[in-house]
């Protein structure tokens, strides 16, 4: 019977083409919408994670209490040993040391005297190790506006806007004046290797990015790190997994009585990211419910109209003696076939678009120009396991339910009136 129904659907395009296109479009939109929303909110979270919070962060409790002030005098000592332990205990995460610092950038004139100064926020990351993934993690190559990434010790990157404000260009030497781990005066020369633009005011206003070892030398932080960040190797925050890592780590290393022991916190415990995560999860859920409901109504309506449009055909089939149950069943099967074909097509098309958006993203930098929080300028879609079925289920069942409702009318038809209807 399925073969018979398929032949009917293929031969009568009024019964198949439009419903399949409507279903496919609805499913496609749902797939793209879901992956886009998940991606945009995920990008914002991941952007924060990559630049500031990590998926998890280890530090001393004393540092944690004053984290906004970047108190390197309270940094983790023996960071190398801690890194070794983390890599052995939790090999499924990437561990990186970071040093955040604030300071004054002093640009000399031709006589070596101060020409101009500006306040900077610095970040020390592992730029020079061959195995380091920090360059990719912070998207530095793509963010380069001029020059090159640091290739040797003593080289630094600066935000393009900041370098323009200070009037320095690639190859120029500038001096960092700051405070060492022991609160001494830190004075260290860097050569500008390149300028970067992230499209975020918070980063573009006055950032300086240097190699971790240079930061250590400049700030007298031998074998110390302000923070150790952990990233899930999948690249995305996994709350359950990180929760287990945090509990295990804290039971092993965190001593509540010792402000210089090492504690670990989650991404959600930093910068109000917990609220943002909860809010984004609820927002995705709410938007999807609204969207899927609207799409379901459209598909349901399509099924309903499809059923009603064939009112005469059903009358004819009943008049020539076909069983009401049989007519109803064939209608349901047809709808199911249309729903499946439309949904498969919709998922396929939606996945194509979502894959493109996941890979290439959309640059919304102009809209983010004045953003003062860490938010990316290029947003990507993100395909999750949910994306595969989020559109498929309403695609199949909405039209089916619509058809089922429309088909109820079959049972209300009186055989005696059918001839009159056909004559009319």
């Amino acid at each position: 019977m399925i073969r018979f129904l398929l032949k009917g659907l293929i031969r009568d395009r009024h019964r198949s083409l439009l419903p399949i296109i409507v279903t496919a479009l609805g499913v496609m939109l749902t797939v793209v919408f879901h992956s886009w929303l998940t991606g945009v909110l995920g990008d914002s979270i991941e952007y924060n994670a990559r630049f500031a919070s990590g998926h998890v962060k280890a530090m001393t409790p004393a540092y944690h209490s004053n984290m906004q002030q970047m108190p390197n005098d309270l940094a983790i000592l023996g960071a190398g040993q801690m890194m070794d332990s983390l890599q052995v205990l939790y090999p499924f995460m990437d561990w990186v040391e970071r040093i955040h610092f604030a300071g004054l950038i002093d640009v000399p004139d031709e006589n070596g005297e101060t020409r101009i100064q500006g306040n900077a926020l610095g970040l020390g990351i592992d730029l020079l190790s061959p195995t380091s993934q920090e360059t990719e993690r912070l998207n530095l190559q793509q963010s380069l506006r001029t020059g090159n990434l640091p290739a040797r010790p003593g080289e630094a990157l600066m935000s393009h806007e900041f370098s323009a404000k200070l009037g320095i260009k690639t190859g120029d030497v500038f001096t960092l004046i700051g405070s060492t781990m022991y609160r001494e005066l830190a004075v260290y020369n860097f050569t500008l290797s390149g300028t970067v633009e992230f499209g975020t005011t918070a980063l573009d206003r006055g950032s300086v990015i240097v190699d971790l070892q240079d930061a250590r030398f400049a700030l007298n932080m031998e074998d110390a790190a302000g923070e150790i960040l952990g990233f899930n190797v999948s690249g995305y925050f996994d709350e359950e997994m990180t929760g287990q890592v945090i509990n295990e780590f804290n039971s092993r290393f965190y001593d509540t009585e010792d402000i210089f022991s090492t504690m670990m916190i989650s991404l959600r415990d930093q910068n109000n990211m917990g609220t943002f995560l909860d809010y984004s999860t609820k927002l995705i859920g709410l938007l999807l419910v609204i969207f899927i409901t609207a799409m379901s109504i459209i598909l349901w309506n399509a099924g309903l109209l499809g059923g009603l449009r064939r009112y005469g055909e059903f009358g004819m089939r009943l008049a020539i003696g076909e069983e009401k149950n049989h007519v109803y069943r064939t209608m349901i099967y047809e709808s199911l076939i249309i729903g499946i074909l439309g949904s498969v097509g919709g998922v396929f098309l939606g996945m194509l678009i979502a894959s493109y958006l996941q890979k290439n993203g959309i640059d919304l930098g102009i809209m983010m120009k004045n953003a003062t929080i860490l938010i990316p300028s290029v947003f990507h879609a993100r395909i999750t396991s949910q994306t595969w079925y989020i559109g498929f289920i309403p695609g199949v069942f909405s039209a089916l339910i619509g058809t089922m409702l429309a088909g109820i009318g079959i049972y209300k038809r009186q055989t005696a009136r059918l001839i009159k209807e056909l004559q009319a």
Partner: protein
Amino acid sequence: MKKLILTFPFMVYSLMFSAQVPDGKEIMRRIDQNMSSENRSFTSKMIIHSIRSSRTLESRTWTRGEENSFTEYLFPVREQGTKMLKLENQLWIYSPTTDRTLQITGHMLRQAVMGSDMSYEDLMEDTKLLNHYNAAVTGSEKVGDDDCWVLELTAFDPEVTYQGKKLWVDKIRHIPLKEELFAKSGTLLKRTELSNITNIDGRWYPKKIVFKDMLQDGEGTEFIIEEIQFNIDIPDHVFSKGSLKK
């Protein structure tokens, strides 16, 4: 009549106290005689006790009056050759590792030196109390075994770093043994304890001062004078920018 009888002993005591108490200005003059000089040169050790560790820095300083000062760091190796020159309210720091001379002005002068509890002004100034403060003697207390006058100072110079001071001044040697230093708002900024009072060329001088910045977490900074000379000839070129890179 009854009131008069009751208050009479207090009046007598107050009169006796004021008769024995020297004038605040006179105490300040005597402190200045001990602590200040036209110029001086000293080698010092600064032991900084932070909440995690202690570090020692050694330096040699030359000062002339209240305005000019030159310091060269001798230890540790990381700081060796770092020089600081203060001329009036401007400060230059020379960093040998970068071969840069940096100027520090204004409020930066009140920042901590090398992570210690002392500011650049604390380290490099030789402020005469009489030139900046009015004083009132408010009592008499013991600091350790030494009898001290309690002196409350109020700055009449709005530019001076500490707008209020409370000193416990040794009655015999006329040297403060304890100080509390206040901001204009009345906030306690620092506490100092002066000890190892030594007679040098006829003046009493503390060879050890413990500074505690009340706004920082650390355990205080010991400033120990290892060698000091007063009123010596210091060539003019010492207090010039040229001496920074020498």
